[in-house]
């Protein structure tokens, strides 16, 4: 029994702890710093940056939130529902800095920016091949520019962060100037464009050279228009003519690329069966099925005809968005876009049912679920187009006319005519542009791009927002926007949570009027 002492001592020593006892080890998650160590995980890390475009909860992405913010509240369409619908505040211009979608979008885009910066800054030192470094680094630059471009147009000068946040010391960044944000966007896009693959990659929906140039065209046009029409302070630095000129030359490069061509059937651009077609330059990839219910969007919920019967198997949706008289009246006879975008029927499954006759029901019809689809509603499988060829053509026409004091130029006329010819029935020759050419281009953009999240930005950059919204004529929907809209609405408010939680931003830094 004497040995018990030694036995116990031995046990105590054996049980003595090892050095790593109090260290944490990652079992079921990753250390972000290690993700760039292999090409496959770097690729996954890049896909994570794209995923911010579509991820849940939908309020923060193009799944739903961005279909609401900066899309509702124009003269193209309005919501059918009451003010308490999720889009009510945007339809009616009653949102406050506390409205949650602003916060969700802001946080989501900044988390994409943070991850893009991690890739941009760290991939050069990673073990990947040069080709992968260039490709992923450029994709990350494209996405960072994309996120900042939405932020600067929605919120103005936002905190400009180009380093990954790795500690609590870097949590608070003040607002930068609009010029500084644009400078980064231009730098990222011009660096990325030449290094990106020319054509659609696998998986579809990733940055390409065409996407970078098309986005660059939009950036130039946007800064030039803000600089010229001055709806907001902060664009005084823009060399307007140079920016319009660059919009023309950059856009022309996209138009000249062999990868893009107009489709002969307007509706096919948006159909799931023909998604990622030659008119699409960049779109958010959405997916839905009876099994996968959280990878889709609310596009059909808003912008499809009504559905009769089981909505999950219907080609239609909840018909929340209703076209305005302004939009309906913009179309002429023979324009196939009218019959696609504005409809008077509902869907029962795949069958068209004439709309209820008791009310003058006019629905939007642009984004319809595929025939035979059976999936959870609110997770519609329709991609959200963000950049497409027709948009670039109209941007080049607009910039070209802007350089010609607003009058049509040969190139502008040629682009507009070729687009319109494609969009009209073969038996109908579209009328030549009449009246103010820039106004005509704007109407053409509505006809072509309505419900695609372009109209609000178009109206804002040219200073037309307030007049256009005040002139909204509703068909059947309701809105109080004409009474509510004010100058302050050229920008959305900085989200309340950002002001509360960012020590470098206080209430005096809020956008004017909020």
């Amino acid at each position, binding site marked *: 029994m004497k040995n018990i002492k030694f036995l116990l001592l031995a046990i105590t020593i054996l049980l003595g702890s090892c050095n790593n006892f109090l260290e944490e080890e990652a079992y079921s*998650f990753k250390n972000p710093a290690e993700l760039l160590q292999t090409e496959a995980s770097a690729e996954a890390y890049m896909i994570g940056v794209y995923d911010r475009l579509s991820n849940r909860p939908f309020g923060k992405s193009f799944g739903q939130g961005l279909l609401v913010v900066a899309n509702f509240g124009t003269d193209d369409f309005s919501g059918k529902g009451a003010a308490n619908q999720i889009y009510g505040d945007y339809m009616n211009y009653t949102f406050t800095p506390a409205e949650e979608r602003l916060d969700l979008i802001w946080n989501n885009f900044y988390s994409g920016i943070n991850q893009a910066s991690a890739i941009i800054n760290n991939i050069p030192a990673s073990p990947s091949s040069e080709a992968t470094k260039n490709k992923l680094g450029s994709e990350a630059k494209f996405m960072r520019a994309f996120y900042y471009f939405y932020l600067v147009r929605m919120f103005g000068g936002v905190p400009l962060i180009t380093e990954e946040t790795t500690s609590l010391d870097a949590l608070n960044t003040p607002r930068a100037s609009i010029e500084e944000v644009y400078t980064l966007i231009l730098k990222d896009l011009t660096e990325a464009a030449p290094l990106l693959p020319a054509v659609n990659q696998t998986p579809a929906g990733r940055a390409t050279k065409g996407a970078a140039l098309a986005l660059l065209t939009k950036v130039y046009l946007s800064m030039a228009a803000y600089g010229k029409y001055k709806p907001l302070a902060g664009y005084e630095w823009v060399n307007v003519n140079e920016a319009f000129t660059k919009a023309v030359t950059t856009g022309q490069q996209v138009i000249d690329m062999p990868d893009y061509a107009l489709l002969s059937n307007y509706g096919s651009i948006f159909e799931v069966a023909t998604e990622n077609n030659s008119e699409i330059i960049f779109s958010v990839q959405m997916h839905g099925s009876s099994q996968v219910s959280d990878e889709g969007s609310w596009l059909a919920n808003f912008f499809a005809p009504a559905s009769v019967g089981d909505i999950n198997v219907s080609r239609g949706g909840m018909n929340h968005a209703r076209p305005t008289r302004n939009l309906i009246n913009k179309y002429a006879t023979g324009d196939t876009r009218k019959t696609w975008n504005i409809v008077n029927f509902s869907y029962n499954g795949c069958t068209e049912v004439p709309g209820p006759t008791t009310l003058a029901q006019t629905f939007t019809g642009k984004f319809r679920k595929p025939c035979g689809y059976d999936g959870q509603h609110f997770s519609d499988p329709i991609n959200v187009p963000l950049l497409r060829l027709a948009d670039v053509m109209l941007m080049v026409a607009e910039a070209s006319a802007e350089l010609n004091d607003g009058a049509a130029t040969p190139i502008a006329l040629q682009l507009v005519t070729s687009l319109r010819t494609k969009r009209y029935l073969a038996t109908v020759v579209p009328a030549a542009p009449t009246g103010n050419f820039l106004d005509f281009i704007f109407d053409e953009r509505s006809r072509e791009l309505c419900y695609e999240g372009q109209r609000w930005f178009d109206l804002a950059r040219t200073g037309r927002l307030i007049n256009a919204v005040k002139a909204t004529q509703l068909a059947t929907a309701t809105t109080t926007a004409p009474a509510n809209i004010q100058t302050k609405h050229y920008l959305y408010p900085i989200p309340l949570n950002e002001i509360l939680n960012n020590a470098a931003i206080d209430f005096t830094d809020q956008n004017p009027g909020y």
Partner: protein
Amino acid sequence: MLFCWDAFGQTIYTGKVLSQGNNEALIGVTILVKGTSRGSITDTNGNFTIEATSGDVLAFSYLGFISKEVSLGPQNTITVTLAEDTKSLDEVVVIGYGTVNRRDLTGSVATVKAEQLKDASSVSFGDALRGKLSGVQVTSSGGEPGAGLDIRVRGMNSISASSNPLYVVDGVPIESNQSEVKTGGMPLDNPNVNPLSYLDPNNIASIEVLKDASAAAIYGSRGANGVILITTKSGDVGKAQVTFSATTGVSFFNNRVEMLDANTYSEYIHLRYPENPLYTDPTTLEWIPMEASRTVNWQDELYKNTGMQNYNLGFSNNTDKSKLFVSLGYNNTGGIIKNSNFKRVSFLINATTKLTDKFSVDLRSTTGYTSRVGQFYGAGQGSGAGITMRVLTSKPFDTGDGIADPNDADYFSPLRFAELSEKLNRSLTNLTNISFNYQIHQDFTLKILGGGYITNAKNTSFLSSAITNVANSNGLAALGSALTFNWLNENTLNYNKTFGDHKLTGLVGFTQQQNTTESYFLQATNFPIEINGADAIQDALNINEYGSEKERWALLSYLARVNYGFKDKYQLTLSFRADGSSKFYGNNKYSYFPAGAFAWQLGDEEFIKNLNIFDAVKLRLSYGLIGNQSIPPYSALSTAGTINYFSGSTQYNGAVTQSVANKDLTWETSETYNAGLDFSFVRNRINFTVDAYIKNTKDLLLNAPVAGSSGFSTVFQNVGSIRNKGIELVLNTVNIDTKNFEWNTNINFNLNRNEVISIGTQEQIFTGVIVNTPITPNVIQVGSPLGSLYGYIFDGVYQPTDFETNGTTLKSGVVSFGTPRPGYYKFKDISGAEGSPDGVVNDYDRTVIGNPNPKHFGGMNNTFSYKGLSLSTFISWQYGNDILNWSNSVLQGSSYNNLKADYYRNMWTTNNQETNVPNYVDATGRNSPSTYYIQDGSFLRLQNVTLKYILPKSLIKTAKIGYVDIVLSADNVALLTNYDGYDPELTSPDPRNIGVDYFSYPRPKTYTMGINVRF
């Protein structure tokens, strides 16, 4: 045996041990020959035999009696009488890493003994604690058998780290969330499982609650919410004994909420939805009434009487060298809702043996298998409403099969729902430890303990394709499992020495504990054949959510404690613990928790003695730091997770950064002050204890919001502080004490005030979540109690006189909310964007509308005994807490849901304008938390009445039975409250919603009959 002893020269002594006073034989008295390892034990007649030599000293010890030493003379036969130890202050109290006599206790410790636990019909020990301990508030999220409990020791201390106390079962600290199965989302989440439900309350010897720093600081980083020490029974009474107890009973629930009958319901729907052709003739627009005789009260259909049974069989043997206790238990408790029940099979082995007089080995092992069968309750999860909601909201007639009304596609008969959905939780837990005690030196004892627990839990749920809301997924099954392995090693050295007036005990130790949890889950849909549900997941065509997770944390600790007693009058305790946790970085891994306490036996001082009032008076003072580290592992790390990304219909996996590292993250620390006084009067017939405390918790662990531009929305940080302060009173009295009749009363009274002192840079944090809504009814804000209820102030209803003649435009000066109309909810305009009332009710007008924390609470137990018959009654109360009766928001006009009858009678209509009850049309007002839903949750409950009859010895002696009693018990007998929900003690199943009642599972009344036999 590795050794034996020399028996030569020994004489055999025989004797008998009797109780002083009544001269009854004492069974199981331990007898030791001093200075040797030789011993014996008395048999059922109190007789013993032992080998010894003349001049040896025999030491007699027996629980509850004063130990005695007797020198052996020449006679071979001796009779010894032991005096009963009447001083309650001398009971042994279990404290962290040791025991102490209550007289020597310096800290604040509340105790419940087995006798107080066993006669109640509770499924788990927590239920049995309700109202019995001072400073301990027990609330449950529902009356479902085996449901989770929230135990709060001296108020809530923490925002996001847990406020649950640390449980220590037979020396093994248990994480209170151990049986939580990670499932990655709906609909398996089942956070309400009681982690200790595997434990049979019959096997608990005592429960001690360590409340102040002096008592709890020895548990350092985990003691801040108090520590509950549970000690299971050992075979220390009697020799070779068999105990058997059987209890059987019935539970029922007779409370009913009066809902509309079929006739009135059809009238209501006719008025509300005139387009529905089932209730309104499309051509004449006349009401199509439904006969009242078709009414089905779903409460009658689903709340059923149910039975319970509990058996416990115990074997114990106690020899001079070894103690053994083995127990088997079985419990089957039905739920009052169809298809719900709880079952437990458990067994326990506690064994101690002395290998030599200096070396002993102790084994304690408990195993329990629990099965909880039920459904989705409350607001449900994943499938819309759960049973407790449907039972009230469903239309009051039977439509035969599921869907009969195309305009109300969500409708589903609650009875069918109960048949077509299920939720199971099964769990196997084993907790074992083995300790070696070795007396190195006469003053030093070394104890090495190795042990831990293993839990394997499995959750499954299934929703049949027939259930409307998931029809599109054609059957939905979820299953998840978690395996937890938690091991512990403790090495402690105890010192014990008395010299003269000085008594010194000390403890130093080193402990390490590691917890690893591995879990997986999957969710499957689309079952062409759904006969087997979640038991045959291969029948599903699609597995659409799945994942696995492994996590680990570890603690490495050093501890020390010194107790110094002088002249048995002054006691000083100093303790210290250094804890290293894997959850924090570098220098923050270690934190230090010192505490000190002082006790003074004032009663022994002449100036008190001279008063001739008190039998004993003790003053206790303590101060110390205790910590809390109950945050998930990896909270301080930078992490990235996996996301699904689809292009076309092809899935790609991407990685996203989810959190930023916080290298400064550290422990939550509570600074605790306690002052207590213990008095005994009237020959110890009145014992009175008062404790006052202040607990300042700082560096609150909070997943605090940060600037979104950083790329993150929240980061775990140490922000803010909370203060709890309170008073606890305990009064135990022996009111009548005659030969045959005794009347005892125990009362505890508790008062706690909680205040948020700061929450960093934040002004408010909204914590409450109501399932399936964006509503956040609870707020944490500086100056208010934690979890305050938040909303508008109800100001009656809009009347036609508030409007211009067009009936829609408000007159100037009338506050507007939403789109007001006559009969709509009207709220007070208290502020606006400019900080002053602006005529519009919006977010600026929300404010604290209720405090879910009671002003005081407590319990009173009275026991009357006459000979073998005893009657005890237990009353508990709570006063001054507010409840947000959110169930009413659904029962007052949510779409096709049925209405409360009294609401329908009283609500505003054009014909009934003299009322403050809004019309159902105003959904915005109805769905806004406001004082309209705030109700007083005060109650007085006759919680238990127990009648026990101990059969007289004369009757059972012939049958060779040692003891028999028969117990009749009634639980939850009567409730006095103004609260209009089912039960003010039940709040939402979601612990984030403190004080929110949203269709809780009601608590039944239970009548039981039991028998306890000892052979």
